[in-house]
């Protein structure tokens, strides 16, 4: 049959349709354009490798704080942050959040922390190749706020910790705190 020659395309299309989104496209899984009009405050940061390189040129290597940021972004390929703040709860559906979560259920992504309370639904996901962290996603779904952070590239979460207390970044502790004697 004539159409039989095209049959092999069907499974390829099926695989492509079900393929997980590329790391840099995770933030596109949420229809931000649809949600943005409902928000009272929006943040949209899109920095690809080119823009990160440009930002790095404006970070001083001599100032200790900026040097740390420069080191942190040295191996990054992209930083994407989308955040919406609403004036009332229920402006977005949990299905939106679940769509992102389902894309992260692949062997390369591992869920590090998942905080589920009545009000918050927040998770941290790391992409690893077994040796190093190649990406970080923070999905924070709060009643009046929805935030998705997607950092693409080799990143050491400890470097983020080093930035605590600088540039308005709060001090953080990763892992178990040392016991007080």
């Amino acid at each position, binding site marked *: 049959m004539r159409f039989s020659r095209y049959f092999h395309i069907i499974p390829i299309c099926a695989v492509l349709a079900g393929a997980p989104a590329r790391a840099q496209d995770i933030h596109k899984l949420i229809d931000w354009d649809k949600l943005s009009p409902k928000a009272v405050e929006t943040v949209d940061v899109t920095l690809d490798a080119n823009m990160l390189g440009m930002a790095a040129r*404006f970070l001083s290597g001599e100032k200790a704080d900026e040097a740390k940021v420069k080191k942190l972004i040295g191996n990054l390929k992209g930083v994407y942050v989308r*955040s919406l703040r609403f004036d009332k709860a229920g402006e977005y559906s949990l299905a939106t959040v679940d769509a992102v979560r389902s894309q992260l259920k692949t062997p390369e992504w591992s869920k590090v922390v998942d*905080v589920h309370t009545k009000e918050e639904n927040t998770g941290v996901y790391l992409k690893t190749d077994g040796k190093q962290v190649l990406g970080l996603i923070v999905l924070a779904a709060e009643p009046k706020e929805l935030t998705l*952070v997607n950092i693409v590239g080799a990143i050491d979460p400890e470097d983020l910790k080093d930035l*605590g207390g600088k540039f308005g970044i709060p001090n953080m502790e990763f892992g178990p705190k040392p016991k007080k004697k």
Partner: protein
Amino acid sequence: MDSGKQMPEFEDELRRSLERVEAPEGFADRVMARIREEGARAPGGRVIPIGGRKPSPKRWAAAVAAGVLLSAGGWRYHEYQRGVKAKEQLLMALEITSSKLGFINSKVDELSQRTIQ
């Protein structure tokens, strides 16, 4: 009247003065040749190229250099602005990321404290 006698003389003199006098043969050609050769001189002594005469290569080079410098300056300023904006966006992204991680960290601490108790 004296004035009546003088008027025709005056008119004759005026007519003679305004009478068309043909230029010597080849005058127009010589003038045009001279113009092409030297160009017209403006009152300030500046040479104004006319009649299809091309500006000197130095002038072309200066104009091109000025254009390149202006373009380069504009591009550099544009890149500077992009860089400053990128840096601001980066710091804001890190601030948001860290605040969310800090929030999660505090929640985990809170939960672990409860578990210990």
